[in-house]
């Protein structure tokens, strides 16, 4: 059974390789890379939880310097389904807490000959810096406010497959919420623009980073106007503490002015879909009734696609056909 699935996946892959060895930013990806990743991910989505041997013998370390449940579980399960051995480091027991530098921690993990190291950090750039210090392939699972590439990829796959299209040309995608503090936005906007989507953001001006328009997007302060004509409504989480630190007066006022309610969602195209990276704060970012059971919601499909994208990347990065290796010399 698993042999048949593996053959199907190999047929889908057609010995193609991606152009990169580490993934810390969507900026690294070409359109060809996106096509390979999405094709292979679709194959893995069909395979569900089948136990495969595609990456058997490879080791993966999930290095979560910042606590995570969903992303960590998704990466861990993905690697296990591929036959990899995995271990998790980070959190309160990690050496980083004892004063060891991130670089020293990652170099040590690399010396275990791990094939892939997944890194989540509360500071921007840790995955990229780590990628320069190790032989293993580094996968960024979120770095500060910067990027969360696998999230961006799974979102793009969700949208493409919902509409059954190859590019996002002509599609209007509205992103609502705390753009400034969102690594999800960082990857999402890059992948959507790469696929030629028409991207709008709507938020209080306090939530917009400097010169954000230069991603090639438009900004809106009136959510109703921004919603008109949208094919996708993507809500980002707004954290409670933003109220206390002066970005917004209160979560209450934010929810009233920017929260996605059924009435507001109806301003978008009738066939529009609603997305959210989770965790959803019900009735603040998104009205509770819209979250998972509403026909327009794609939130659970996003989660399922997340596993598929992660499996695709792990396989593509740890088993190459082109024989190329990351150029790296341990000092």
């Amino acid at each position, binding site marked *: 059974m698993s042999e048949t699935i593996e053959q199907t996946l190999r047929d889908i892959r057609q010995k193609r390789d991606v152009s990169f060895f580490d993934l810390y930013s969507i900026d690294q990806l070409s359109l060809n890379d996106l096509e390979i990743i999405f094709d292979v991910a679709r194959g893995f989505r069909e395979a569900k939880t089948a136990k495969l041997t595609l990456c058997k013998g490879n080791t993966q370390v999930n290095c979560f310097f910042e606590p995570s449940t969903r992303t960590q579980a998704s990466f861990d399960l993905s690697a296990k389904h591929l036959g990899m051995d995995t271990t998790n480091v980070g959190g309160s027991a990690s050496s980083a807490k004892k004063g060891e*530098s991130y670089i020293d921690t990652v170099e040590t993990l690399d010396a275990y000959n791990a094939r892939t190291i997944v890194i989540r*950090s509360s*500071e*921007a*750039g840790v995955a990229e810096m780590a990628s320069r210090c190790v032989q293993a392939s580094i996968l960024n699972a979120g770095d*500060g*406010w*910067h990027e969360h590439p696998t999230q961006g990829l799974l979102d793009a796959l969700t949208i493409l497959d919902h509409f059954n299209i190859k590019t996002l040309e002509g599609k209007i995608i509205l992103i609502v919420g705390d753009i400034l503090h969102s690594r999800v936005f960082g990857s999402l906007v890059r992948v959507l623009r790469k696929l030629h989507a028409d991207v709008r953001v709507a938020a209080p001006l306090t939530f917009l980073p*400097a010169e954000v328009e*230069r991603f090639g997007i438009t900004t809106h302060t009136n959510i109703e106007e921004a919603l008109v004509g949208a094919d996708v409504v993507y809500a980002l989480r707004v954290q409670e503490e933003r109220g206390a630190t002066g970005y917004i007066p209160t979560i209450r006022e934010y929810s009233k002015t920017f929260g996605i309610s059924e009435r507001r969602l109806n301003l978008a195209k009738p066939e529009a879909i609603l997305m959210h990276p989770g965790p959803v704060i019900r009735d603040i970012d998104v009205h509770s009734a819209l979250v998972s059971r509403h026909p327009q919601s794609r939130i659970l499909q996003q989660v399922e696609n997340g596993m598929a994208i992660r499996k695709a990347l792990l396989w593509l990065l740890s088993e190459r056909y082109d024989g190329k290796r990351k150029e790296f010399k341990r000092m």
Partner: protein
Amino acid sequence: MHSILIKNGRIIDPKNNVDTIGDVFIEDGKIVYVGVSCADTADIEIDATGKLVTPGLIDLQVHLREPGREDRETIETGSRAALKGGVTSVVAMPNTTPVADNQSVIEFVLKRAREVDLINIFPTGTITKGQDGTMLSEMKELKNSGAVAVTDDGSDVQNPQILRRAMEYAKTHDILIMSHCETTELTDGGVMHEGWVSTQLGLSGTPAISEDYAVEKNIMLAKLTGARLHLLHNSTKGAVEAIARAKKNGATNITAEVSVQHFALLDEECLGYNTQAKMYPPLRSKEHVDAIIEAIKSGTIDALTTDHAPHIEPDKLKPFEDAAMGSVGLETSFAVMNTYLVKQKHITLSEGIALMTHKPAEIIRSDRGTLSVGATADVSIFDTTKEWIVDPKAFESKSKNCVFAGKTLKGKATDVIVGGVIKMKEGTII
């Protein structure tokens, strides 16, 4: 009688409007002759054919780290770095450990400078005790023990009332205040210039308004109090515009400097999370860099400095947000000025040298920075045609954190004379 004859160099002494091929004769530590040809013979002759001969450079903002952080830099290693760059005088910032908020630290720095005996070191004291922005330091005592100015550089006096009183008190004793201009509430944890690059990197930005606002505050208070104010490391369009406006309106008690990285480099240097490009104030965007260059061209700026800031490697190997701020610069400042201002035809070589010699000297009321007959013989000789790739491993500085690493610069000091004594000969420190 000890004498040195520098033969046949291109002598540039902006203070005296000298730009000529000729000789410089030094005797007993003083400049005796500057002219087309000197007939006298000397104990030592230096052939400067094809080279540039200038007054020794003066750097108003240097962190020597001693006492306290000798792992980063010492007065000796910092002095050696200065010689490599043709710098003969440095103003040492007071944010050492302990901070120079009392005369014992000033006296210690001066004692170490005498022992090391390589360059002139002008110490500064702090404006407030412990640089915490609340209680004034004993400025008169600091001045009497040898401080040339007071500054809380590394932080800024946030409370305008304290700053007003500091200026009034400094004026009482004719003491120069050097202000690091920053509004910390507006910086709010920012780690690089706020703009398109910080947005792409997902890093918290330091907005230009943080500096603009503090510069305006300092200028208004200097106008009110009449205190002598020097504005350190200006990096924004708003800052230099405010300074130009104040000078145009007749303020003669205000001077301003630019650190060389702020006209040479853009915030884009931070891409890839390059922590060597993490600066304080941060490297700015093109709009600001263009304004800084315009301000240098128009004469708004009185001095070019380095803000030489040594840091050990582990402090730069951290995530960008946590990494130390600053770059060493003593060994590259002349070359950076020459490469990015003179070779780009923004200013003449003479104008650039003026900003690194007599103009900064006048700010701290030193009579150095000239080749006037009778002046103390601090002289630097440069090979301005020498192209070199910056390799911090070759630096004399104890720390190797340099934002110019890997860049190709033009111009290098070959010989340096301090107080009539040769301290560096053909690139070798004696």
